[in-house]
C-alpha cells in the first residue's frame, strides 16, 4: 500500500479542519494549545487519550476482520453496547477476579450473538449486512437502555445507571502514571492486532477469509465455504466488538449506563477503514482517533464544538476511502 499518499492527505485534511476554528472566534494558538494539552501534551491529556484508545483499538480490529471478509460491520456500536451490558451483569453477580474475566467473555459472547443474525442473513438470504447491522444497533440501544432503566438500575441513583462494580471485579491497570492508567485492554488490543495479522497471512483459514472478501465467486470456485466464512467472520467481529464494549465498563467506567459506547463503534469503523486492511495499522490509526477525540473534547471547553473531531475524521475517511477504491483496494 502506498501509505505516503494517505498520510500526506491526512495532513491536508487536518490543515483544512483548522478553518472551523476561525469561525468560532477562538484564537488559533489558544485552540491549538488546548488541543495539545488535552490530548498528549499534559498528563491530564494522557488520561483521556488512553481511556479513548482501548475500545478503539479492539473495536478497530473487530471491524477490520469483517472488512477483510468483505463485510461492512456498521453494527460495532450495538455489539459494544450489548457486550458492555452483558459484562456488567456478570461482573455485578461475581464481584471477584474470576468475575472480571468471565465478564469479558460474556461481553464477547453477547457481541457475537448480536452480530450473528447479520452474518447469517448475508450468507444465506442475501440480506445486506449494512442494513441489518444498523437495525440491530437500534435494537441494542433500546434494549440496553431498558435494562439500565429497570432490572439493572441502581436504586440509590437518580440517573439511569447500573450499580458501581465492586473493585475486585474491575480490571486493575497494568501500569499507572499519576492518574493516567494503562489498562489491560491496551496490551490485549495490541496482541489482537498482531494475532489477526499473523492469522490472515499465515493460516489457510485467514487466506480463505480474505479470498471471500476479495472475490466470493472465485473463493467458491476454489472450494471455500463462503456462507460459513461470512457467518463466522461476522460473529468474530461481533465478539471483538463486544469485548471492546466490555472493556469500557471493566477497565474504565466501572458501571453501565445508557449509550455508554457513545459512538465509539462508529469510530472503530473509521479506525479500520483508515488502517486500509492491515491489522497492524490499526495501532497508529486508533491512536490518531484517540488523540483527536481527546483533543477536541478539550477544545470543547474553549467553545469550539466537539463535533470538530467528527468533521475531521469524516473527511479523512472519505478521502482514504476514495483513494482506496481508485487503486483497487488490496494490501496484499
Amino acid at each position, binding site marked *: 500500500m502506498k501509505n505516503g499518499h494517505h498520510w500526506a492527505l491526512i495532513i491536508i485534511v487536518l490543515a483544512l479542519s483548522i478553518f472551523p476554528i476561525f469561525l468560532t472566534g477562538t484564537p488559533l494558538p489558544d485552540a491549538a494549545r488546548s488541543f495539545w494539552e488535552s490530548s498528549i501534551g499534559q498528563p491530564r491529556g494522557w488520561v483521556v487519550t488512553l481511556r479513548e484508545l482501548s475500545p478503539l483499538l479492539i473495536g478497530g480490529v473487530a471491524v477490520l476482520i469483517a472488512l477483510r471478509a468483505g463485510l461492512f460491520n456498521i453494527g460495532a456500536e450495538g455489539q459494544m453496547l450489548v457486550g458492555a451490558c452483558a459484562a456488567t451483569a456478570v461482573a455485578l453477580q461475581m464481584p471477584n477476579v474470576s468475575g472480571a474475566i468471565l465478564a469479558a467473555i460474556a461481553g464477547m459472547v453477547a457481541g457475537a450473538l448480536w452480530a450473528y443474525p447479520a452474518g447469517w442473513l448475508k450468507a444465506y438470504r442475501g440480506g445486506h449486512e449494512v442494513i441489518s447491522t444498523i437495525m440491530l444497533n437500534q435494537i441494542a440501544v433500546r434494549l440496553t437502555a431498558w435494562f439500565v432503566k429497570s432490572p439493572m438500575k441502581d436504586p440509590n441513583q437518580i440517573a439511569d445507571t447500573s450499580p458501581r462494580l465492586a473493585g475486585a471485579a474491575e480490571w486493575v491497570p497494568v501500569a499507572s502514571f499519576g492518574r493516567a492508567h494503562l489498562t489491560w485492554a491496551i496490551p490485549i488490543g495490541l496482541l489482537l492486532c498482531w494475532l489477526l495479522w499473523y492469522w490472515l*497471512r*499465515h*493460516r*489457510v*483459514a*485467514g*487466506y*480463505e477469509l480474505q*479470498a471471500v472478501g*476479495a*472475490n466470493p*465467486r*472465485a*473463493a*467458491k*470456485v*476454489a*472450494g*471455500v*465455504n463462503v456462507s460459513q466464512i461470512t457467518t463466522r467472520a461476522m460473529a468474530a467481529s461481533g465478539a471483538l466488538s463486544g469485548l471492546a464494549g466490555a472493556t469500557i465498563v471493566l477497565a474504565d467506567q466501572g458501571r453501565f449506563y445508557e449509550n455508554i459506547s457513545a459512538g465509539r463503534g462508529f469510530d472503530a469503523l473509521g479506525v479500520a477503514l483508515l488502517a486500509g486492511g492491515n491489522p497492524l495499522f490499526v495501532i497508529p490509526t486508533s491512536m490518531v482517533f484517540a488523540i483527536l477525540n481527546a483533543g477536541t473534547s478539550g477544545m470543547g471547553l474553549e467553545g469550539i464544538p466537539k463535533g470538530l473531531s467528527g468533521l475531521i475524521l469524516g473527511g479523512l475517511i472519505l478521502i482514504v476511502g476514495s483513494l482506496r477504491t481508485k487503486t*483497487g*483496494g*488490496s494490501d*496484499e
Partner: protein
Amino acid sequence: MRALDAVDFSALPGQIHALVGENGAGKTTLMRVLYGALDVTSGTVLLDGNEVSMPNSAAAIARGIGMVSQHYSIIPALTTLDNLMLGAEPSFALDRKAATERAEALAKQMGFSFRWTDKAEALSPASAQKLEILKLLWREARIMILDEPTAMLSPLDADALYGSLKRLANEGATIIVVTHRLPEVFEFCDQVTVLRGGKLITTQPVPELTPATLAELIVGRPVEIPSLPESHPGKELLSVREIQVKGDRGDDALKSVSFDLHAGEVVGIAGVDGNGQKELFEALMGLRDVYSGEVFLGGIPITDAAPVKRLEGGFRLIPEDRHHEGVIEEWSLTDNVGLGLQNQPPIADRGRLDRGALERTASAVAERFRTKHGGLDQPMASLSGGNQQRFVAARAISGEPKVVLAFQPARGLDLAGIADVYAALRDVSRSGGGVLVVSYDLEELLTHCDRVIVLCHGHLAEPDADAARDRGAIGRLMVGVGE
C-alpha cells in the same frame, strides 16, 4: 513500448480482409487506430485517399467506420429494435413504427429475420452477432471491423455469417475480420494481413498462400501440425448418470445427461454457447446442485460432495469466466496460485499457509506456460488476458490432477499458447488422468481431443462411430438437426 512499428495496412472495398497474428502481435492496436480509439505517434490514416483524423470512435462512426468487438454490446433488457437504435436514434422523439420499417428493410437486405419487440436476452449468440452487424448498417458503416466474429458460433452459423459478410462486400463494403481460425481465412477471405511483434509481415491475396505457409508467417518458424496420439482409454474415471441440473433461471439446463470419461482420455464437449456447458462443469465441480441422477469418481458416488472434497480428490477447473471465477485480480500472482490448492500440501501444512511453498508453486506455474509478468508480487490485474489464461491453466494442471475440467482453455491464446496448453492437458491424460474440454471451436476440439461429444439444448449427443471426426455431422448435432 511500441505496439505497432511502421505498419502499412490497406483494405479495399468489395473484399473481406483477414487480420491475423499471435497474442501481442498488434492486431487489437491496429483496429483501435482504425476505429479512432487510439492515436498514432507517427503515420497517417487515409480514407478514400484523403488523410483523416479520428480523435474518437464517434468520429470514426461519422466517417462510416464501424466495429463489432468480441464482447457484444447488446443490452439484454432492451428490445431488439431498441438495441439496434441505441446511440443512433434517428430523432429526438422516437418513432418506433418508422424505425421498425427501416430495420426490417435492412434485415431483409441481409437475409436476416428478427422479432423486433422481443427482449434481446432471448437472442442466440448467432443472432446477437447478426444484430451487431445490423447495428453497423443502421449507422451506415461502409467499413466494418469484426473482432473474432465466429468465436461463439457453431460451424453452420459461422458459414451463414460469412455468407452475409460476402454479400455486404459484394455491395461495396470493406470488411476487416480479426480471426484466430485459419480455415476461415482460406474459405472466406480475399486478402490476409499478418502481423508479428508489432511489425507488418505481409499482406497477400489468400489464394497465394497455403495453410502451412500462413501458419509459419504468423509464428515466425515452421509449425508442426500436431498429430493425435493413438488413444488407449483406461478404466472409467468419471461417470455421469442421467443428471439433471437447473439453470440460473430455473430452467432445465441439463436434461438427463450421461457419459463416461476414462482414464487417459481427453474428451471434447462441442456445442454453441449456452447449451448447458457452464451448468455441466459447475455441477461436476459441486458448485451447482444436481437434482436428479448421479456422478461417480472411480466408482465412488460424489454427486453431493462439496467443492473442497472434489478439489482434494483431484478435480481441477479452468473456469469459464477467468476474471470473476479464476483469479482475484487485485491479489499478487503468488497469492492467486493458492486458489483451489489452499487446503492441500505443499501449500497447506495442517492449517498453516506455507508461504514459501506458495511462492515456489507460483514460480513453477508462471514458468510452465511462460506467463509474461512483471514479478510474482505484482497484482494479477497487471497481466494481459492471454497471460492470465496461461497462469490459470498452468495452476489447474499443477499437482497431480485426476480430472481436469477445462472451459475454453485456449481462449485468448495464440498458436504457441494453445499448443502448450493442450500438450499439458495431454500430459494429464498420459499419467492416468482424464480431461474434459468445453470449446465453441469445433476445429480446436477435433485437433486435440480423443473423442468429441456434443451438448445441444441440455441434451448430450455422441456422433456415430463412423462420423466421430466428421465436421459436418458434429456441426449438425450442435444445432440439433440430423440426429
